[in-house]
């Protein structure tokens, strides 16, 4: 059973503690040019998680603020891992999707493949690596919550078995009518370990809601399985054609000779 985190966006106060905890735990420098919180907060090589501010209208059409923590969603079947041709991304049993820098070639196919544009690159470095949130996999392996989750003063997160959290999320949105009837991450790209509930429609909060519900690797699986088969069949056909047409040419040449003679 994989671990997950349930995020209740109605509770977040935008304090940014989680982004600080992330920097400290992972030893990431502060980036003066890109803040980790506010309207311009942006994920990058040094910011593995950020809290974005959104001014939106609530159901009574009153302007309200909502704060959205962004990080890797740790897909159940991650596109990044199925895209990497050197196995530098791997999904663990416990839930986190981990990046192994020594295996990485730096082709950045993982970045293009991630439906949520999560993996970032260290563009300023001579030998850049891909970076992203790894759900503090060391902690999660031990059954502890990720760093960001454990410091939240506003009770935004619940950490636990994903299936149980999903059930809990369903109960919450069924009971309380303020929530939109959608659990982000339940079905998106086949499900993610991080799941979100909210009182504002997700598309207004910068979520990519138009993504497929199919698991991403399923788009290439059939293709990859067919390849060796197609390759071998094609080879047999070519060899056959080679001998057949060669023989045919010989026969026609001999016939021509006989004819002339």
């Amino acid at each position, binding site marked *: 059973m994989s671990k997950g985190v349930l995020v209740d966006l109605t509770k977040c106060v935008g304090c940014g503690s989680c982004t600080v905890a992330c920097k400290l735990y992972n030893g990431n420098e502060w980036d003066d040019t890109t803040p980790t919180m506010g309207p311009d907060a942006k*994920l*990058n090589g040094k910011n593995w998680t950020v809290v974005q501010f959104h001014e939106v209208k609530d159901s009574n059409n009153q302007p309200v603020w909502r704060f959205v923590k962004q990080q890797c969603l740790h897909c159940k079947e991650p*596109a990044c*891992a*199925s*895209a*990497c*041709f*050197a*196995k*530098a991304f791997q999904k663990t049993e416990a839930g986190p999707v981990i990046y192994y820098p020594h*295996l*990485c*070639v*730096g*082709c*950045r*196919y993982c*970045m*293009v*493949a991630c*439906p949520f*544009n999560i993996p*970032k*690159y260290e*563009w*300023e*470095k*001579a*030998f*850049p*690596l891909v970076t992203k949130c790894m759900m503090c996999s060391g902690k999660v392996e031990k059954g502890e919550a990720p760093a960001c989750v454990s410091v939240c003063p506003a009770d935004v997160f619940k950490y636990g078995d994903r299936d149980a959290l999903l059930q809990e999320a369903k109960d919450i949105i069924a009971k309380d009518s303020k929530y939109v009837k959608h659990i982000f991450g339940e079905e998106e790209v086949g499900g993610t370990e991080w799941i979100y509930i909210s009182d504002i429609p997700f598309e207004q909060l910068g979520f*990519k809601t*138009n*993504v*497929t519900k199919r698991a*991403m*690797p399923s*788009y*290439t*699986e059939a*293709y*990859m399985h067919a*390849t060796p088969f*197609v*390759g071998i069949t*094609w*080879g047999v056909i*070519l*060899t056959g*054609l*080679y001998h057949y*047409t*060669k023989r*045919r*040419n010989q026969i026609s040449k001999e016939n021509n000779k006989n004819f002339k003679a």
Partner: protein
Amino acid sequence: MASHAQEAQKWSFRITPIRVLLMLLSLVAIGVIVFRLVTGLGTVTNLSDEWPWGLWIGFDVLCGVALAGGGYGTALIVHVLHRDYFAPIARSAMLTSLIGYLLVMAGLFLDIGQWFNFWRPFVSWGHSSVLFEVFWCVSCYTTVQILEFGEIATERVGKKFHNIFKKALPVLMIVGIIFPTLHQSSLGGLYLLMVDKLYPLWWSPIIFLFFLISSFFVGPAMICVETTLAGKAYDHWIPIPILRKLVRISAYAMILYLILKIVDLTNRGVLGLAFSGTFEANWFLIEMIFGVIIPIIIAFSGFSNSRSGLLTFGLLVSLGVVLNRMNVVITGMIRSTGVSYIPSAGEFIVSAGLVAMGVLAYCFVVENFRILEHEDHGHAA
């Protein structure tokens, strides 16, 4: 003239103003390349987290591989189907292809961030990745092509190995057709994962088929362009009927492509997007009309009976395929990334420099090895 040089057994390389220009361009590009390898991708390119793949992947790799596809198509026709009729073009088509692949490898190498780690996928098998297949096939195919070229090279250097290469040739040829077939389609297959990112006019569950077919039909087109250039430069003219027949083969593949495209777009209910007048729609229409429909008409009209007709066909189709690949890499992605990307001067210089190096290499090989002579003349020499 080429045979003259051979009899004298001296290496020749004519210096013309154009070649000096190409050499200068190559030198500048090499400078930029060294700078990039030492300082990283961020300094030279306009790539960013929004645009992890740009001109080098789009042009140097995707276009390069497609345009170099002329080699496998010709190998199939001449060496497997034994249509000796087309033999006069076989060697030069394969040479272009070999040079094309070497440039693709160079382009790929430049584009990877941890370039000293390039060999990693040979030992760490990410076999669920389409890129894994591209990587293996391109590496193997380049090796096979170098071996195939061995048959030509040993006519001049290392003559004692010539017979070995000659014997190995049929096997190499067949292996050398399987690999490109697989990876031409895999390059399209890479985009299967971009289902929510690539604009629906280009993304398709059968995008790999579109890549495969277009890499096949661009082969003869490239041969038309190349033989015109070689004809001008070396006064070596491939008879029009031969080219015209090839162009027809290509046109049949294009008709198939067009039909598949329409069926696919209709099936997914996005055919209407093509006529919606958007930025993407217009580029798509340009690609289809100038790169596919007009060339088909040319191929079946009397125009293809002339050198200028063949050249027009060749240029339209080649540029059409280039446009298609660039549309997939850039135009079709702008909407989902929310920002646009314009390659930096450094990126353009390197791409142009790689092409220049390819042209120079082609000229050198043609002047020093038996490439452009017809087989039957060859025996006399």
